[in-house]
């Protein structure tokens, strides 16, 4: 969300520094405005079919600060960023926050902020880093102001980290890949209604899409692409994800957690003031995170690079799946025909395989078939004999 506000233009770094030096109330107002500008379409403008409450085009009908309250309190152009917020905005899927947090970025930043706030062990932060520190503490480590849309902390759920893990578990059936600093499991409420089949279904989906990508330019030979199977897995994912979002469930949590991870991710995307203060500059976000982790003695995840690469494209594809765009097998070829969807699917399949160690490019069930095809049912008498040919090379006589 903060990365969206900064944009990807040539003046990106300047805009990011501008954001980091804004007043926390301005940043808070931006979040309210973003929420106010979310898409609230009763029907999908492309297909004209109705959008259920909770779908990407109608995430929630819970109100933010009324726009006139924002404008009257803070003024229009002078304080908040947009004066026409009804822009049909999306934010990234919760999987983005999950992937980014798996790098262990949140805990590392927490240690950095704490170290700067309580002493000078890491040195004294430069001027602009002071603003970043203040904003980070105010937005993500303090009790939010009452009535704010991103206020997901209360006496009933005081630990926002447990709330995040709870949301990840409900949506994806997974906890983060790390526990507490002492490697103990992090305590959080594991809801009964959780998508425990999410990972296996997503992996089936990826493997079938990879078959499609591999065969898309075939002009002869067998084509194992199965559009119906891909549509079936897409529908299963669509149904389970939308089940967790019924009537706008988890929308505010998703919005806040995606915003939070977006802030930290943006901080790592260039040599920002806080990284300069820490002497944690690098050429890539994972390298900067690694150096920062070394400074505070808490290792980042070894696959952080893959998690960073996965976060954006997987979030975009899951939004499409939640929209139901691939429930129809006629649309499935878009996932492997040359284009933006195919490029994202390639990235996802490659980095998911790297991050999990489970190769999505291997045919489903191939390991089993390899094992069985190697066994040829020889009896002792039939074991192939190895002899030497005239050149002294071993030859197996079958």
């Amino acid at each position, binding site marked *: 969300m903060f990365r969206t*506000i900064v944009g990807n*233009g040539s003046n990106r770094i*300047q805009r990011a520094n501008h954001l980091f030096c*804004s007043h926390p109330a301005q940043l808070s107002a931006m979040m309210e405005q973003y929420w106010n500008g979310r898409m609230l379409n009763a029907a999908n403008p492309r297909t004209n079919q109705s959008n259920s409450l909770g779908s990407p085009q109608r995430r929630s009908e819970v109100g933010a600060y009324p726009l006139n309250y924002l404008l009257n309190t803070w003024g229009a152009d*002078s304080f908040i960023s947009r004066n026409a917020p009804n822009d049909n905005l999306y934010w*990234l899927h919760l999987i983005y926050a999950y992937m980014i947090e798996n790098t262990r970025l949140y805990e590392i930043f927490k240690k950095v902020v704490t170290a700067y706030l309580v002493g000078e062990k890491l040195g004294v932060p430069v001027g602009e880093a002071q603003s970043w520190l203040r904003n980070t503490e105010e937005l993500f480590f303090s009790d939010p102001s009452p009535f704010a849309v991103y206020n997901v902390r209360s006496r009933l759920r005081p630990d926002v980290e447990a709330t995040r893990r709870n949301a990840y578990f409900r949506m994806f059936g997974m906890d983060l890949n790390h526990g507490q600093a002492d490697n103990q499991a992090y305590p959080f409420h594991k809801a009964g209604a959780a998508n425990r089949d999410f990972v296996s279904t997503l992996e089936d989906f990826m493997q079938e899409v990879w078959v499609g990508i591999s065969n898309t330019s075939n002009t002869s030979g067998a084509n194992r692409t199965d559009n119906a199977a891909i549509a079936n897995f897409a529908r299963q994912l669509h149904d389970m994800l939308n089940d967790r979002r019924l009537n706008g469930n988890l929308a505010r949590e998703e919005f806040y957690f995606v915003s939070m991870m977006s802030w930290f991710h943006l901080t790592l995307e260039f040599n920002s003031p806080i990284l300069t203060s820490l002497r944690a500059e690098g050429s890539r976000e994972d390298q900067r995170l690694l150096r920062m982790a070394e400074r505070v003695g808490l290792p980042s995840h070894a696959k952080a690079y893959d998690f960073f690469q996965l976060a954006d494209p997987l979030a*975009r594809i899951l939004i499409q799946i939640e929209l139901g765009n691939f429930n129809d097998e006629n649309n499935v070829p878009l996932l492997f025909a040359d*284009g933006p*969807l195919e490029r994202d699917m390639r990235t996802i399949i490659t980095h998911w395989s790297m991050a999990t160690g489970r190769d999505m490019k291997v045919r489903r069930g191939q390991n089993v078939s390899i094992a069985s095809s190697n066994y040829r049912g020889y009896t002792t008498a039939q074991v192939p004999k190895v002899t030497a040919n005239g050149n002294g090379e071993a030859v197996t006589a079958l």
Partner: protein
Amino acid sequence: MASKKPITAPPASSLAKSKSVSKTLQGPVGIVEEYETIQKMLDGEAPQWILPPNPKIQIS
């Protein structure tokens, strides 16, 4: 002996069918366009956000 069939152009109906398949791959229902629009929106490319003024930093 049966005479060979002359080679003729495919019927117009089959051409129309193949054209519609290729249109599907390009996204006749606008999925690709919608995807690109969402991507641009999420990348902050369009619409571009106007940041509030900050006396310390001037954006070129």
